[in-house]
């Protein structure tokens, strides 16, 4: 009898827990439903329609996608721009990050670390929207500081850092490298400092020099964090919008327009919501592939540890 009532009480509290669990999750679930799930299905649906917001969407089958893959030459340009920005900035950032982290890994002086963190990390916490304003002024063709110094020190003629196609894309990439340098450097620095000292001691006894230590111990052991940092940053870079939107407005002649900017432009300037959703579907597909890659890598990373 008492055993039975005990079980009853247990079941009762179990049921109460079930209800509490769902109640606790309900606000997050509701927001997830309204701002993630419904928009995703709406995006999928609208990608098969023609929709200008003033009249209801009309179903047009695959025509948006046919246009996207066969008739739209801009999608190729903006995809290549986005890809170049992501890959070049992340690869260079990792190379620079490894070098900087290796150079200061043994400097643990408090004041030195403080100043290094201030100089290198601060660009990462300032809004890209402000960074774009400052760099647009620095890089201006005729009035910019960069051209002034290039002329007075190297005698170079003023360059259109924001107005010539290749240079403009290069400027966007350069600013991204400048912004993320500290972030990547400090992640890798933590990775290097977590490596067991005994590896180095053993190798030093065998007569390995500093370069050999870096080449044969630090970098191989750091590979998992390098891969992880690359994938995280590539996802961030694929979404690039603020800096080119403010600095060059995608110009000159689409040379710095990214996929996110193209979606915005198609949806809100041209009011082709349906077509913009088709581009978004493609965009999500790419992000998905990279994210799945990230999960694979981070699983492996955790196992290594």
């Amino acid at each position, binding site marked *: 009898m008492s055993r039975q009532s005990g079980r009853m009480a247990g079941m009762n509290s179990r049921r109460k827990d079930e209800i509490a669990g769902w109640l606790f999750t309900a606000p*997050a679930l509701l927001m997830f439903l309204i701002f993630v799930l419904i928009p995703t299905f709406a995006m999928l649906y609208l990608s098969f329609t023609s929709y200008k917001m003033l009249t209801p969407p009309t179903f047009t089958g695959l025509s948006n996608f046919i246009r996207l893959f066969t008739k739209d030459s801009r999608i190729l340009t903006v995809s290549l721009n986005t890809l170049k920005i992501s890959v070049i900035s992340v690869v260079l950032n990792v190379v620079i990050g490894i070098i900087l982290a290796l150079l200061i890994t043994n400097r643990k002086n408090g004041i030195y670390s403080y100043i290094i963190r201030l100089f290198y990390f601060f660009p*990462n916490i300032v809004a890209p929207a402000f960074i774009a304003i400052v760099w647009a002024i620095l890089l201006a063709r005729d009035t910019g500081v960069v051209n002034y110094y290039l002329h007075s020190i190297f005698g170079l003629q003023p360059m259109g850092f924001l107005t010539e196609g290749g240079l403009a894309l290069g400027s966007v990439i350069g600013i991204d490298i400048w912004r993320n340098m500290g972030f990547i450097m400090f992640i890798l620095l933590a990775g290097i400092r977590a490596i067991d000292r005994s590896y180095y001691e053993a190798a030093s006894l065998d007569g390995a020099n500093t370069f050999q230590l870096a080449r044969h111990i630090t970098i191989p052991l750091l590979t998992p964090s390098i891969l992880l940092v690359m994938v995280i940053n590539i996802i961030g870079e694929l979404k690039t919008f603020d800096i080119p939107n403010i600095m060059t407005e995608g110009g000159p002649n689409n040379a710095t327009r990214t996929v996110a900017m193209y979606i915005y432009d198609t949806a809100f300037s041209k009011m082709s919501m349906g077509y913009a959703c088709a581009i978004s579907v493609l965009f*999500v597909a790419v992000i998905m592939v990279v994210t799945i890659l990230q999960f694979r890598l981070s699983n492996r990373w955790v196992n290594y540890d």
Partner: protein
Amino acid sequence: MTKKYWGKAGGLLISLLVLALGFLVFTPFLFMFAQSMRMPAEAYKMPPDFFPTRWDLTNYATLLNSDLPLVRMAVNSLTVTLCTIVVRLTVSIMAAYAIAKIRYRGSNAVMIGFLSSMMLPIQATIIPIYIMLSRLGLVNSLPGLVIVGVFDSFAIFMLRQSMASVPDSVVESAKIDGASQLRICWGIVAPMIKPTIATMIVLIFNGVWNDYFLPYILISSWEKMTLPLGINALKGYMGSGNQSVILAAVSFAVLPILIIFLFGQRYIVEGMTSAAVKG
């Protein structure tokens, strides 16, 4: 002996080089601040300033006395950021607690569903979100900005990971003492993961305070703009003739962040980098 001596000198030289390069990395901010002190008439005079040649706040006064609601924008930024932090954290802590500690039937599926939303960047789903908000009358309003930012799968995931390290026995014994789930969540488990919560506050602050994309899409009137959007709109409004005034506006927005960073930088850097690695 000599080798060791050279090794030490080389090490010092390298440290100084890294420091010098760091200074170069930081110069755009020095330029921004020093130029904001120049009179508009001499804004383009070369060479530029990297340190203020005189402490002249005329440009700041011009901005604050103009019709442009710069202070209002700062208040908007602060309001949206603080509201998002409070609401997002409350919602995320509750969900994380339920998934990590109540473990109701279906909680794993819920977490997987939440995580899958990481693959759906806001830049892709913004069109339906915009349409929905305009139907609800939440376009061009600060509550609209906050509500879009309530759900954050990354925050829920990080908090859940952290709560998983709290022993189940703590929760069980509190239950035996008759504590409700609400009380265990807020009174016992949440205080035990304070460091993670602090990291999340830093990350959310940084993300929302710096956000340009969402306000750019949703906000259209001056008095509702946040700082990143508002200062860029101001730049367009004033044209390129007033470089020092624009740099004063940017300095006005960046200096408070610099001050916060000067005091809490160790914490901010560690929080941001460790969150990236764990996520």
